[in-house]
């Protein structure tokens, strides 16, 4: 296991964070998965499972039901005096934010590092919100690494800052940090297993009177954080001559630093690693020594505004450039091309900017060959009226958005399929069929379903139960037999849950049986009131891990009449047209799921002998 090695290793940014937590002797790690954060927790899960085999794992790891619970669990561990790590993607912090805002008030005891992995350019997210605002919103210190090596060091430092200030510390990465690999120097692992003790009597029950006491105390802690930021080795200046300055953080620093070499720029770079609170004193000195300064930060002009304010308050006449200058925008991630072109303009150099993408036929991700979601969508489309509204949710099944299924009409966030389903059912006369995955159902679908039951909203909820959290890398969830440490867990039975909260019409189907699924869907849509169809079949990637021998299907060319239903309506990616225009099945792709023979009107799809 690379992560448990020694010396110098090439690690993913996320693995480096996991390693940092292990070097810091973390006691409890919790998460709800989400790209680009998932590998932090997945690495810790793998370590826990591996070490668990040989006896006690030296820390506790949990895939929690959602980010809020993950944070609450870890907050309690911290108040028992343990070191805790909680990781999530940027939108996960929205889910955890109710806990986070007040957690900042009561603070922590054992060091607690909360990782937020942001996703500028929405590579795998529903928005590109800038979570540096959360540091300001909640009043919590924030560190932002630029490389895997820094990610590891900052994780360790974050635990220390957290204990010094008795405040949880936010570690913010972006996709280009989390998913970059780089050389990381590994230090000895300190992994000891321990239990903590909760000392009663602190200011930990936030009734109004206590909250009012805590808020000024929090602000006072943040003043001390500002001092730490002024002294932080992660806020450093590199001098390449000249009288102009660059202030940069995160991925933008990497591009700027390389531009200085490549373009021979004379300037000083102030690299901001502890980005909240900003190192005000150091910034004042820096601004005073510069004639002009350009600020390179992705997304929102957060540092820019705070630095402009610092300059104004201290009467510093430096010219400040930021968003709106050169190619710097508030949306999408920066790229080296954007940063080079902008710096060229700033330093008055000839430069040609031609953008950094090239038009080529798109290759969007699609549902895997044999994916059970495809069968469900095919069956639903067969029986649903044309103007049926399909509120959808987040997971592999969101790919139902693509033709030919187009079974996705509305999506906000995890769980929104059922909440918005209630709203559409009330607001229209159209049929409403909401789709939600199993992991998403536990995460945020349950309260919405309770709402739907209680108000007897008339629509269908299809729960796509594929036994896993597929989209983010097949993590366990409350329905699985084992937990994230490989220990036996208590699997939740969705059917019992749904019946238990009072849904009257519930059916469980195997989507690989299309006829059965279509009939169940028809009954559910005819039912007056709320109905739930649980469409249950394992993600094909789980299955192929266990089942070695598989039957492969082929087209009987004599029977095939080239109606193309399999290609245009069912669209399993294993189908293709050969040069002669014949329909064929790519053997390397076919998983033998056995669904397509049911859709061919001429019985031309058969098992290959």
């Amino acid at each position: 296991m690379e992560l448990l090695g020694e010396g110098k290793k090439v690690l993913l940014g996320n693995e480096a964070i996991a390693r940092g937590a292990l070097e810091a002797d973390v006691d409890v790690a919790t998460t709800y998965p989400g790209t680009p954060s998932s590998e932090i927790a997945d690495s810790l899960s793998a370590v826990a499972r591996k070490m668990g085999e040989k006896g006690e794992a030296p820390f506790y790891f949990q895939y929690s039901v959602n980010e809020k619970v993950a944070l609450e669990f870890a907050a309690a561990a911290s108040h028992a005096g343990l070191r805790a790590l909680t990781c999530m993607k940027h939108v996960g912090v929205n889910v955890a934010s109710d806990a986070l805002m007040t957690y900042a008030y009561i603070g922590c005891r054992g060091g607690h590092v909360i990782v937020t992995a942001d996703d500028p350019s929405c590579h795998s997210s529903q928005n590109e919100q800038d979570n540096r605002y959360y540091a300001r919103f909640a009043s919590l210190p924030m560190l932002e690494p630029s490389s895997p090596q820094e990610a590891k060091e900052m994780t360790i430092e974050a635990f220390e800052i957290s204990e010094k200030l008795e405040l949880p510390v936010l570690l913010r990465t972006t996709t280009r940090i989390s998913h970059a690999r780089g050389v990381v120097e590994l230090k000895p692992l300190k992994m000891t297993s321990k239990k903590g003790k909760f000392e009663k009597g602190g200011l930990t029950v936030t009734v109004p009177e206590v909250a009012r006491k805590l808020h000024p105390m929090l602000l006072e802690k943040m003043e001390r954080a500002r001092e730490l930021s002024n002294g932080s080795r992660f806020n450093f200046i590199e001098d390449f001559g000249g009288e102009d300055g660059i202030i940069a953080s995160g991925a933008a620093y990497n591009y700027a630093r390389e531009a200085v070499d490549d373009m021979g720029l004379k300037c000083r770079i102030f690299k901001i690693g502890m980005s909240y609170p900003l190192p005000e004193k150091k910034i004042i000195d820096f601004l005073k020594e510069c004639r002009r300064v350009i600020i390179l930060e992705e997304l929102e002009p957060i540092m820019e505004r705070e630095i402009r304010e610092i300059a104004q308050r201290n009467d510093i006449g430096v010219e400040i450039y930021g968003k709106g200058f050169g190619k710097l925008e508030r949306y999408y991630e920066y790229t080296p091309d954007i940063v080079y072109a902008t710096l060229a303009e700033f330093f008055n150099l000839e430069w040609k900017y031609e953008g950094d993408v090239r038009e080529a036929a798109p290759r969007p991700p699609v549902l895997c060959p044999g994916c059970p979601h495809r069968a469900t969508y095919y069956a639903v489309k067969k029986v649903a009226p044309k103007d049926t509204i399909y509120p959808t949710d987040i997971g592999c099944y969101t790919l139902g958005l693509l033709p030919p299924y187009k079974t996705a009409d509305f999506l906000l966030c995890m769980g929104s399929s059922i909440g918005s389903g209630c709203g559409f059912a009330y607001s229209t006369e159209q049929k409403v069929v909401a789709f939600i995955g199993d992991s998403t159902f536990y995460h945020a679908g349950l309260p919405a379903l309770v709402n739907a039951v209680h108000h007897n909203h008339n629509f269908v909820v299809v729960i796509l139960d594929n036994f896993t959290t597929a989209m983010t890398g097949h993590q366990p969830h409350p329905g699985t037999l084992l937990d994230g440490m490989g220990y036996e867990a208590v699997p939740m039975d969705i059917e019992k849950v749904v019946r238990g909260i009072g849904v009257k019409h519930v059916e469980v189907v195997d989507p690989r049986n299309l006829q059965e699924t279509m009939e169940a869907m028809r009954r559910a849509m005819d039912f007056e009131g709320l109905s739930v169809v649980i469409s249950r079949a394992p993600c094909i990637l789980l299955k192929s891990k266990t089942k070695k021998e598989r039957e492969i299907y082929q087209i009987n060319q004599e029977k095939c009449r080239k109606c193309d239903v399999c290609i245009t309506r069912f669209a399993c990616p294993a189908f293709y047209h050969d040069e002669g225009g014949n329909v064929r099945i790519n053997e390397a792709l076919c998983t033998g799921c056995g669904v397509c023979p049911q859709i061919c009107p001429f019985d031309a799809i058969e098992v290959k002998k």
Partner: protein
Amino acid sequence: MKKSVIIAGVGGQGVITAANILARASLKAGHNVVTSELHGMAQRGGNVECNVRIGNVYSPMVRRESVEAIISFEPLEALRNLHKVKRDGVVLTDVNPIIPPLISLGIGDYPPVEKIFEEIEEHCTLIKINADELARKAGSILTKNIVMLGAFHALGIFPIEEETLLETIRESFHERYAEANAMAFKLGKEAIESVGDMH
């Protein structure tokens, strides 16, 4: 010194594994190395790109016309990244198109492969190999990424000893694939050597 390569292909072809092997071999050979990769949504049959950069580098991302080579596991994916390779650089690509499923539905368009090759040749040096065929010869289509690494190594762009790269490959897989991988590497390398000394 600063050398960069893009490894491109389609989800499931072993692109990330290849990038990872190249990165670890680079470190073994004493180079600083950074890489970037895309996970998540990009995996389900979507396009996958990894950059591997060695030497005096900070950024895992690359600029237009800045990389020495593209190693592409599929022709269209070479084209998608073409603007990032230097004019005096190389595109090393497999010749077997993988048609995106949406195109089978009549959405979008896959340019004729010959057109793709022409466009690449207008930009820089093009080297084509039939890596699918070589991988099958080596024992399994799954060794395609190793064929590509063998071919890339033969171009001599990254200063890494052959044995260092082979050792890293051996460490990356179960023993039972060692033989097929060694063969795949050799076939990839020979495919380039037979094209002649291009670089």
